[in-house]
Structure formats: C-alpha cells, structure tokens
C-alpha cells in the first residue's frame, strides 16, 4: 500500500476570537499561546486566557478607550512588520504616556511608546547593562546618562499581554539616555527588567502606522537627538571646505597686477609738491587699486601722501592718503629703528576707465637738538631724495575675504545656538537637572 503523499499542512490561523464573559463583546486573541491577560476593549474587564479558557479576572465597566493606534493595526518598522496587540496608559505623577505592545510571531514582542507626541521603539534586553558610575550605565560600549527616576502606574489596559496586567499596578522606573536611545529599567518585587528604547522620527510613525503627525515635541524627549547635532558636524565640514576654497581663491586671485611706476623728486625745502601719473587704464568692471609709495632714503623723517584717482571721462575722484615715516637712534638698549620706508593703500571698487593719479606729497625732516646726521639728513640734495610710486590693480580685498568667511560661519553659529537651546530644553526635563528645582513652585 502506497502511503499518501503528505500534504503541506495549512498555515496555522493567527487570530482567535473570544467572547468577553463580562460584556459579551468579541475580543480577538492575536498571540495565542503567549498571551496571559487580555483587557476587553469594550468594558475594560481583564480576562485570563492562559489555559485556553477565558476567565474573568477583574470586572470593569469603564468607558471605551480608543488608542491612537487601533489594536490589530500593522506597520513595518526597522524592516519588520509588527501588529499592535496591547495598549497601556501609564502615568507618573501628572505625566502620562501611552505604550503599545507590538507582536510578530517570528520576532517576538516590542514596545511602542508615545510620550507627549514623540515615539520610541522598545526592545527588551536579555542582558544587563553595566553599572559605570552613580549617574551612568554602559551597554555595548555606549554610555547612558541618568535622566529620570520614579514610580509608574498602569491607568488603562486594552488588548493582550504576556503577563498579568492590573490597573493600578506600580513599578519603580529608572531611565538613562544618550542621543537617540533611552535605557529603561523597571523593578517590581518580583523582577528587574531592562528595555532599550530607540527614538523614532514622527514621519516614520506616520508612514508605518498611519498616526496623525504630531506637533513639534517641546521640550524634546529625553533621548531625542538634536536636529542640529548632525547638521553641525556636516556644517563644520562644508564650512571648512568653503573656507579652504576661499583661501586658495585668495592666493590665486589675490595678487596685484602692477600697471605703472614713477619716481617723484622730493624738494629739499619741504614744500607741498604734486605730480600726476597717468593715464592708468583699468579694464575690469570693478577693481581694487593699490598705490604703494616707497621712499628709499627715508631716515628720521616722514612723507605725507594724498592720492586722488580721477576718472578722465567723468572727473569722479577716489581719494586716499598715507604716510611713510622712519626713525632711528641709539639709547641705553642700543640702536633702534621705528616705522617703514613705504606706504601701501588700497582703494576698493574702482570702475573701469582711464584715470590719472594725482599725488600730493611733502617731505619732512625730524629735527631735534643733538641729533647728528653725517650727511645732513635724507632730504639733502646730495642724497637725491625721491619717492617711487607704483600703481596696480587686483580683485580681492582682505576685508571682503573676512566678510565671506563670516558669512560661511554664520549659519553654523546659528545652528550651534539652536543646538544649545535644544539641549538645554531637553536636559531641563531631567529629574537630575540641578537648575530645575529653582522657580518650579510657581
């Protein structure tokens, strides 16, 4: 006799319907075999389903509770599909939050916590974090700083749970955080358990479970990562690249093209003199014009310089002034010199055109009794005193470079301020924030 080919067994049904012994409502069992207690969604009674029979544990006639995520809703988070099978409303003093028990038969249980509109995805740990200091724990090499401590109470129960739930039940809680993650410990007389909660961005929850988008969560959740944090790192990188580029640009473009140079004699009697240098042709739409005057023989004296750059066509005048001065002497510390033999000035944003540079100058001699000049000073005719004036044009201007750097840094600085404000508001919620006690009694 040929045995029949074994047929593939039909898939095990996933849901079993029960009827609530208190109100008769239909209660669906989605994790049969694991579920211990079910909170009836219609009357709030708690039912025991451990051995396949349904027994009433606590009778209740509570008003219907409608969780934001209706039980039975499925959504994919972190690559796995989860079904919301249980809902708890919990509170600590006046602070309330919602917890959903998620289930997938192939992945077990997870938690979805909604506090003040912000979401977290919790995984129960099978290992114990390492105690580090009185204010921190470590897990897998990451440190978590203490944030909350208190006692949490269960206020409402709907759906199924793998342990005995009871309204009014309390556990001691402790929370430690790092950006994006919260390590939570719950302690009852019977056991101590650890959960790692991962912060979930709102848009991910809207997409996965169709929840209504929350308004901005403020102050932020204890483990909510600063939206500016990552941006600051990226901003510093981009800003750094931009600054480096700016620097290279200024080296490449920052040089001055010298157009003309002329020597002007300095009168011995120290009278006002003037000279015209031109024509100077400027071809760029706008440019910086640099005028450098050098007095090679200058010693113990100074030269006043006034420049007028005159557009031949429009007679528009760009004025600038400078001075070259140089002194030397000997005192108890030995010989000294002071000042420079040249003067360097720049005129910004000069439009294209043909120009004349009118130089008004006057040579001066420092006279002091007892000063000895072997050759009678720099302005003696034997020294042939003269000024060499050079005119050039360029595109970059140091102060522009500084402004550009400031503009690059500005968004980053604003980001830094926003980041610090976020972190202050976040830490302000902590039970261990010393600043919190002051002025909290109003």
């Amino acid at each position: 006799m040929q045995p029949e080919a074994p047929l593939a067994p039909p898939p095990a049904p996933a849901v079993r319907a029960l009827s609530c012994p208190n109100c008769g409502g239909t209660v669906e069992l989605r994790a049969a075999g694991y579920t211990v207690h079910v909170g009836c969604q219609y009357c709030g009674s708690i039912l025991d389903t451990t051995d396949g029979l349904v027994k009433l544990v606590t009778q209740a006639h509570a008003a219907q509770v409608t969780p934001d995520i209706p039980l039975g809703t499925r959504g994919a988070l972190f690559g796995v599909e989860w079904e919301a099978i249980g809902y708890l409303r919990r509170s600590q003093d006046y602070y309330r939050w919602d917890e959903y028990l998620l289930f997938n038969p192939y992945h077990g249980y997870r938690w979805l916590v909604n506090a003040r509109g912000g979401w977290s995805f919790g995984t129960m740990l099978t290992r114990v974090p390492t105690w580090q200091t009185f204010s921190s724990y470590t897990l897998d090499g990451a440190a978590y700083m203490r944030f909350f401590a208190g006692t949490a109470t269960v206020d409402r129960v709907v759906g199924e749970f793998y342990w005995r739930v009871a309204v009014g039940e309390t556990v001691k809680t402790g929370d430690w955080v790092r950006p994006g993650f919260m390590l939570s410990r719950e302690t009852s007389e019977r056991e101590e358990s650890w959960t790692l909660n991962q912060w979930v961005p709102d848009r991910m929850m809207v997409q996965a479970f169709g929840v209504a988008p929350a308004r901005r969560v403020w102050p932020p959740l204890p483990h909510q990562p600063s939206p500016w944090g990552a941006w600051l790192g990226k901003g510093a990188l981009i800003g750094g690249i931009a600054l480096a580029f700016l620097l290279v640009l200024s080296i490449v473009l920052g040089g001055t093209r010298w157009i003309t140079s002329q020597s002007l004699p300095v009168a011995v009697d120290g009278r006002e003199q003037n000279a015209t240098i031109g024509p100077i042709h400027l071809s760029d739409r706008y440019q910086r014009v640099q005028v450098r005057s050098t007095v090679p023989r200058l010693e113990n004296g100074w030269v006043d310089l006034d420049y007028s750059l005159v557009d031949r066509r429009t007679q528009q005048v760009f004025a600038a002034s400078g001075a070259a001065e140089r002194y030397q002497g000997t005192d108890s510390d030995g010989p000294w010199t002071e000042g420079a033999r040249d003067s360097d000035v720049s005129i910004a944003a000069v439009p294209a055109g043909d120009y004349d540079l009118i130089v008004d100058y006057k040579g001066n001699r420092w006279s002091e009794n007892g000063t000895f000049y072997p050759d009678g000073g720099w302005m003696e005719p034997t020294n042939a005193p003269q000024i060499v004036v050079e005119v050039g044009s360029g595109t970059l201007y140091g102060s522009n470079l500084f402004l550009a750097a400031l503009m690059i840094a500005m968004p980053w600085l604003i980001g830094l301020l926003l980041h610090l404000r976020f972190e202050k508001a976040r830490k302000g919620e902590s039970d261990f924030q010393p600043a919190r006690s002051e002025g909290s009694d109003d």
Partner: protein
Amino acid sequence: MSLHLPCPNCGADVVFRSPALPSRVCDTCHSMLVRSDAGVTQFGIAAALPFDVSPVQIGMRGVDEGQAFEVIGRVRWSWTDGAWNEWLLLFEGGGTAWLGEAMGQFLLLREYPFGEVRSKTLRAIADGERAQIGQKVELFGRKLVIADARQALCITAEGELPFVAPSGWQAYNVDLRGPDGACASLQRDGRTTSFYQGRYVMLAELAPRGLRAIEGWALPDYAA
C-alpha cells in the same frame, strides 16, 4: 539507529530515533508511548495542545555552533502567570538540547549533570528549599542571579522525549540569568533534580528552516 514500530493503540508507524529518547507521543492518536526491551507500552493519551502561534514546530531544522539539529519533541508547561514551550533539539551527533520559548524570547539550554554543580544555594533548592529571587549564585566561574522560581504544571507534550511528560506532572522550576545573556535552569519534581545551562538566542541566529507558517504573516527574512 531509528526504530520503526507500530503504535500499540492505533497501529500507525512510530519512530524512535535514539535509545536516549525512550518516550514519545504517537503523531496519529496522541498515545503516550514508552519503549523498553519488552517492546512499546502505552502510558495514556496526551492532552490536545492548546492553540498557539509559536513559529517553531516539530521538523524545524537549524544550526547551533556549527552543528545541525532538528526539532523532534515539545513539552508545554504552565504556571499561574502564563505558559511556555520547551522544544527538544536532536543534533547530528546524537546530542540533545532544549529550546525554551517564553514571552517571545528563546533560550538554548543543554543538560548538565547536577552532581557537578557545587553551588550550596542550588543544592539547598534541590533538597527542597524555596529559591530566593535576586539571590546571586556562582556557577562554573560565572555569576548568575536567580531571576524567577515557580511551580510548573505540564500541560501536554508531543513528539519524541527523553522522559514521559504526562499532563498534570508538576515540577519546581528555578531560572537563573547572567549579565551577558547566559542562563541556567533547575528543575525539581520531587524525585529527581535536573540542571540545564545555556544562553538567550535569537531564532534568526539558529538559521531555522521549516518554520511554521502562520496565516497572515510573511515568513521572516532570516528563514528565506
């Protein structure tokens, strides 16, 4: 060496794969059978398994530490606050281990001779004392904590087993846990004490093949 015998109750072919596993439940009529030199004797009828959505089933295969195994038996236990499954794994080399399944988490435990356990605390529990939850126990150089202790009741069993697991069989169960996912378990049923050691595992790390199909749920990526 597998031994094929007819079920004394219904005549269906039953397989005993290892002399170390003398007990089994007939897949057809759920008779509890025990093999001995005299043949196969019937011990009663195993109660029907209550409906559950466990992803493990008899015939599931997997690998642990390079050794392939097959799930060949299950005992379902209950206590006042829930129920759990103990799946029996038979390895290629003939060794066995238990895959405990509770609260959606899995533990892989191997039996160790209790005679080698030196802990005074565990010896006292084996002698009838109650376990103190939270008490620290040092086992083979590792520090564990008594995490749970409970009176357990056997609901039913299926497949091949190293012992007869009749419904209503009672045992005192003590679970120990280490900080790094290590765990141990002591079971005392009045006559004997058994001791198991192992660790928490994810189903995915056992590379399971032949997971149970559950209506409305896609098989996980790790089983593909």
